[in-house]
């Protein structure tokens, strides 16, 4: 793959997306062995820069890197206190001077990884930027759907939650649409961008309509930490009108799968009985996260011979 960075699903062709997923099937097998390590990225330095809190994504990237034998360095800081006084350009120059092979970055402002990438020799992987994109999340979601459903084209997928500010929704809408799925979104009007229909998705009027006859139902995390101005009255009321609950199971297809990017707010966007129920694939998503991130790292770092991973 000639691509140097993974900044967003927006840049990827369906072919590239399929290629990542195909490779992820191989990398997944590494995690299923007793010795979960291959030497492919030995001697490569990878920086994980997290300017926003993250547990799962950061761990997932780090595990993926370690299983490929890369040297990983983590830097986490919440808020922008560290970036104060240093411009984005200076940050980029300093990082570049340390000669990493890859920089994995999460930042609270959309476009930060894109601008960083322009100033870097290293490959940049966007691990979430503002309300914009979170490409590896969409890829791992797609991998989970493909594993369960065999194919993605023609599937009906519902995404429920803060569509306006969710980068998971941003990347998933792009990714699923590119792969031929039909996406329906549902959110309180106060969390739905006015121009969402231009992305080609359907907008459902209520939760029941959104989930009826769908192959996949994805609930998004309500970002409690993210808003000062209230977009809905309370978490209780959110759960009442927009939370996935047992009473909704009757509208779902028997083979519907329920997804969530995590971490779950139990009893807010999804009830415990649903999250832990037979339709839930939430933990498979987490496993696939490692596989997809391994695949992305391999492809960005020149690919070499991808069969090396199965040695």
């Amino acid at each position, binding site marked *: 793959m000639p691509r140097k960075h993974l900044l967003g699903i*927006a840049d990827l062709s369906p072919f590239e997306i399929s290629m990542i997923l195909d490779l992820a099937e191989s990398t997944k097998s590494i995690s299923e062995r007793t010795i979960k390590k291959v030497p492919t990225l030995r001697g490569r330095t990878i920086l994980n820069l997290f300017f926003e809190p993250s547990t799962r994504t950061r761990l997932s990237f780090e595990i993926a890197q370690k299983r490929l034998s890369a040297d990983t360095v983590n830097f986490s800081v919440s808020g*922008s206190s560290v*970036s104060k006084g240093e*411009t*984005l*350009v*200076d940050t980029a120059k300093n990082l570049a001077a340390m000669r990493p092979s890859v920089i994995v970055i999460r*930042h*609270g*402002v*959309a*476009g*930060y990884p*894109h*601008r960083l990438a*322009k100033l870097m020799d290293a490959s940049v992987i966007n691990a979430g*930027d*503002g*309300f*914009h*994109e979170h490409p590896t999340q969409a890829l791992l979601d797609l991998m989970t759907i493909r594993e369960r459903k065999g194919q993605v084209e023609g599937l009906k997928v519902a995404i429920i939650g803060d569509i*306006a500010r969710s*980068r998971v929704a*941003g990347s998933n809408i792009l990714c699923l649409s590119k792969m031929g799925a039909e996406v329906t979104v549902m959110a309180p009007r106060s969390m739905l*961008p*006015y*121009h*969402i229909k*231009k*992305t080609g998705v359907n907008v459902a009027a209520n939760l029941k309509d959104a989930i009826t006859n769908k192959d996949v139902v994805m609930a998004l995390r309500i970002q409690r930490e993210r808003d000062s*101005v209230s977009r809905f009255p309370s978490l209780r009321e959110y759960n009442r009108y927009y939370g996935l609950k047992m009473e909704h199971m009757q509208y779902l297809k028997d083979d519907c799968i329920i997804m969530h990017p995590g971490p779950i707010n139990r009893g807010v966007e999804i009830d415990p009985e649903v999250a832990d129920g037979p339709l839930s694939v939430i933990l498979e998503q987490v496993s696939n996260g490692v596989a997809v991130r391994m695949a992305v790292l391999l492809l960005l770092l020149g690919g070499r011979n991808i069969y090396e991973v199965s040695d």
Partner: protein
Amino acid sequence: MKLVIRGGRIISPRDKIDYIGDILIEDGVFKRISQKPIELSDALEVGPGKGQTKSIKKADKVVFDATGLVVAPGFIDIHVHFREPGREDAETIETGMKAAAASGFTSVVTMPNTTPANDTEATTLFILQRATQIGLINVYPSGTITTGRSGKELAAIGEMAEAGIVAITDDGDGVMNGTIMRRALEYSSDFGIRVISHSEDKTLSAGGVMHEGFVSTKLGLPPIPPQAESVMIYRDISLSKLTDVPIHIAHVSTRESTELIRRAKREGIKVTAEAAPHHLTLTDEAVAEMDYDTSTKVNPPLRTQDDVDALIEGILDGTIDAIATDHAPHTTTDKEQDYVEAPFGIVGLESALPVCLDRLCGKAKVPLELLIEKFTLGPADAIGLKKGGMEKGAAADLTIIDPNKKVTIDASTFYSKGRNCPFNGWSLTGAPVCTVAFGQIKMIDGRII
């Protein structure tokens, strides 16, 4: 000292002149404008591409050859930020004045959001003193509406007016308190100065950084709804009606705003309005096309093509009285932050005329005479300046334009300290080639004399 501008197409909307002729300037004032040649013997002959610029200052008699050029009253920019006092690293009164003179402007109205804000007689006098020392062009300071631009209590409006401000505004922020705005209109009218409204409801813009639309959704940046502007414009128009005091609306950027102003004018409300070159030519797509480049971050934000079209309609039908640059230089360091952290603002002076001549006169078919009106008579009347014409005996300010000159915008060569220009690298047709202020040639071919 005598100066003759020879053989140019003279266009002055205020004086209803549009013919090829000569202008005689003597001792800094307009002496004669004539379709017949005005002779000046033993004069130094200058013009674009003719060199000799070093001798101009010493010469007692100068003839400027304006054949093939357009000669207009000195252009007026009623919305510039010169950052001094307080942020001399971003711009100074001197670099700002040079940027203005280099780009064809002979008069500017400076915004008061300096550090400290211009909310006192002392700061006003300081600005005027600096401007007089430098002397390139006319600088008209504006003062704040409220002390420290806090929106809470009226600043020393009377004393500032006496010291020389021409208008009051809290530009950079709107005045959220309606009663304060009402009292500002009432009180300022006793002193004969204008109120300029930065129309923004902060509770609606709510931390946004770009226009709310499909592009903001695509890019994942916090959005500013256009209503943050239009609801405040409606309030201020309504207050102008209540108080019967004129109001000037700064940097109009949306269709809805334009329509509100058009309707108010039809009703006879004393409202005037300006639009900025970037709002007349760029859309929110620029943020995506330039890949989050912070030189596209400006307040009000770049809007949609429909808004651009509405603003141009406003230019054509007189709803928009003036084009003003909202020249807002920032240091490269400040602009090299992420898109949320970086300050709002576009450095506007040195790209203004090429952008307007090429995109408005060239592409959008705005007649050149009308464009000149928007830079002369329009802004002068909006702020109440006795400027923008060629009246005999008046201080002679002229802007001479070559409508066919091809230029490429290069921000690294600006006289301004600001480099935050989204037009950087654009190749355009039409540029100012000479600036005359106080009856003296201050710029030829983009270089300050």
